[in-house]
């Protein structure tokens, strides 16, 4: 062997060993960022270093990844009555269609680590993908003849998963609604009544003098004052309920109870938080989300924060009025947020706080982004605040039924949600876009009736 060849072999061996050593070190030290094939989408980037969450432990095949997708997203898909569920595509008669678009797997449309082609709804296919299966739509719908395939998913038209507010009969049913129902109010929060209904020890209101911390604990007057003005004191939740919770095995005084204690009464809310952009890192046992890590604009002063129940609900006071607006504005710094205090929604919120409008008439950040839901729990109905804002975010037609229609008519909602400039102004002004879907449905209804007669 020539000596120059030997030199090259030696260099190759050394560089290979160095590379192996580098990656082995990275892997064993928990820094898996080297293995990322590319930046992740806005939906997953927070947990992109928890590789196993999606890929499974041994980087298993597509079925394991599908299971991971479903593990986090199935509840939402079920709630919105997914129009294209996997179960509709496993029938062998669809095999030709699957060659075009394998709708059995989420990753066909949501291909992760491809940020350069990922749209704001997390889709990585060209926007005219509906064409692959519905190319002959114009034959059935004259109204669709001149429409381009990249407009199918425009706000107020169609959505691949959630068409609950978009199906034709729904459009017809809601066609004549006013822009705003001036008397609308949100469902009243009633957790205390619910707890009383399921508990054998009815809770009664407490005062500062009722605080039941042990003598061994130093009293802090500000803390006691804060607590005595809180919904906790009003509804009989004493110091011991959190600080000496039976959840903590030995019932000793715990100065800083963990959030597992919150879950005892607020399980549904915590479940939503852990599924949300705010809590998804905590759910993966990673360090908590911080505004400094956000891709949206956040206020500089908030960068040091890390998110937990207490970042929005200050301990002892647990002021839900502050949590509903000021907590959000404390961090978020985008145009929509900054425009809120000049919006008609905020005016209503202020009027509610001033008592000139009934409770539930105001529109806070959380009225829309963490909406109230009526749920059934332990055989009783209660109002819960859905803390997973992702369920009502993008595409924005996800908000139509659970949020907008609570106070607005369908036509106005479509137009407003299609008007990006109006959204940026936090709905100050009137929609300047007109979505044709209701008119199309009405027209078809009229022609159909003529046919029937």
């Amino acid at each position, binding site marked *: 062997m020539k000596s120059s060849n030997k030199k090259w072999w030696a260099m190759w061996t050394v560089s290979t060993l160095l590379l192996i050593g580098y990656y082995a070190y990275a892997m064993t030290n928990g820094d898996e960022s080297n293995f990322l094939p590319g930046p992740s989408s806005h939906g997953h980037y927070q947990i992109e270093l928890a590789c196993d969450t999606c890929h499974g432990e041994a980087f298993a095949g597509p079925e394991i990844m599908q299971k991971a997708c479903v593990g986090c997203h199935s509840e939402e898909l079920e709630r919105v009555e997914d129009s294209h569920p996997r179960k509709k595509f496993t029938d*062998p*008669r669809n095999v030709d269609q*699957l060659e075009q678009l394998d709708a059995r797997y989420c990753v066909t449309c949501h291909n992760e680590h491809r940020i350069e082609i990922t749209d704001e709804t997390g889709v990585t296919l060209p926007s005219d993908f509906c064409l692959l299966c519905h190319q002959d739509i114009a034959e059935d719908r004259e109204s669709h003849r001149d429409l381009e395939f990249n407009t199918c998913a425009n706000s107020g038209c169609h959505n691949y998963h959630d068409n609950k507010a978009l199906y034709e009969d729904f459009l017809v049913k809601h066609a004549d609604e006013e822009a705003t129902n001036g008397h609308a109010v949100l469902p009243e929060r009633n957790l205390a009544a619910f707890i009383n209904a399921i508990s054998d020890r009815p809770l009664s209101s407490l005062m500062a003098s009722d605080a039941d911390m042990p003598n061994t604990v130093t009293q802090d007057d500000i803390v006691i004052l804060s607590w005595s003005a809180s919904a906790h004191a009003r509804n009989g939740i004493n110091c011991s309920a959190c600080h000496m919770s039976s959840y903590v095995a030995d019932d000793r005084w715990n100065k800083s109870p963990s959030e597992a204690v919150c879950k005892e009464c607020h399980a549904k809310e915590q479940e939503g938080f852990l599924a949300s952009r705010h809590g998804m890192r905590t759910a993966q046992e990673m360090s908590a989300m911080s505004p400094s890590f956000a891709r949206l604009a956040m206020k500089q002063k908030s960068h040091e924060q890390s998110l937990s129940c207490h970042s929005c609900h200050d301990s002892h006071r647990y002021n839900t009025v502050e949590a509903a607006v000021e907590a959000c504005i404390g961090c978020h710094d985008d145009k929509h947020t900054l425009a809120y205090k000049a919006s008609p929604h905020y005016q209503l919120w202020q009027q509610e706080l001033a008592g000139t409008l009934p409770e539930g008439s105001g529109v806070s950040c959380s009225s829309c982004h963490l909406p109230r839901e009526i749920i059934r729990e332990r055989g009783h109905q209660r109002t819960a605040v859905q803390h997973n804002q992702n369920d009502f975010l993008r595409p924005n037609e996800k908000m139509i039924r659970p949020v907008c229609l609570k106070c607005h008519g369908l036509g106005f909602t479509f137009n407003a949600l299609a008007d990006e400039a109006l959204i940026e102004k936090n709905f100050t002004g009137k929609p300047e876009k007109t979505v044709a879907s209701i008119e199309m449905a009405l027209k078809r209804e009229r022609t159909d009736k003529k046919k029937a007669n």
Partner: protein
Amino acid sequence: MKHIKTQLAVIGLAGISMALVGCNEEKTTAAAAPASVSPQKMADALFTVMEADRATYTQKVLKRLVKEEKLIKASEHWKDDKALPLPAQMFRMASERAAENSSDFSYSLISAWPINKQNEPKTAAEKEGVKFIEDNPGKRFYKEEKLGGTTYFTAIYPDVAVSSACSSCHNDHKDSPKTDFKVGDTMGGVVIRIPL
């Protein structure tokens, strides 16, 4: 030696009597392998269950509560309208549920005049079968077909308008391409596929 022979005879007799006592179970296990059910028999049996379930729902639940007692409506948008699902929807929901739980067979409803265009005959066997059941009322269609590299035993059974509710609902639906169905008409077919 004799003693050993006696012992063996006793053991032998005991074995035979044990076999006789457990003969029912033995028979089942032994018979299962050679006399396996043919794909056609399996498909026919599945269809019998599907048809029976749908007829029971239609007559004992829907007809009674909607038409006779007028307690509740049946609606295509049954969730929003807080109503009962239509029989065809019950059928499809069950078919999707079965598909989630088993890949040993699949079934669906197809028609040459579907309300949802995705349910018109797609494969060559479906096209041939739907034509066959329309042209030969009451007859069933069986064929093997290859889809995506797998061979299936495909059976298509006529889906007949058993009551005026079936025909009128389809005739009045704005997405229905046919508006003159009558009771007794073959409106489409139930397709059952078994991978071979």
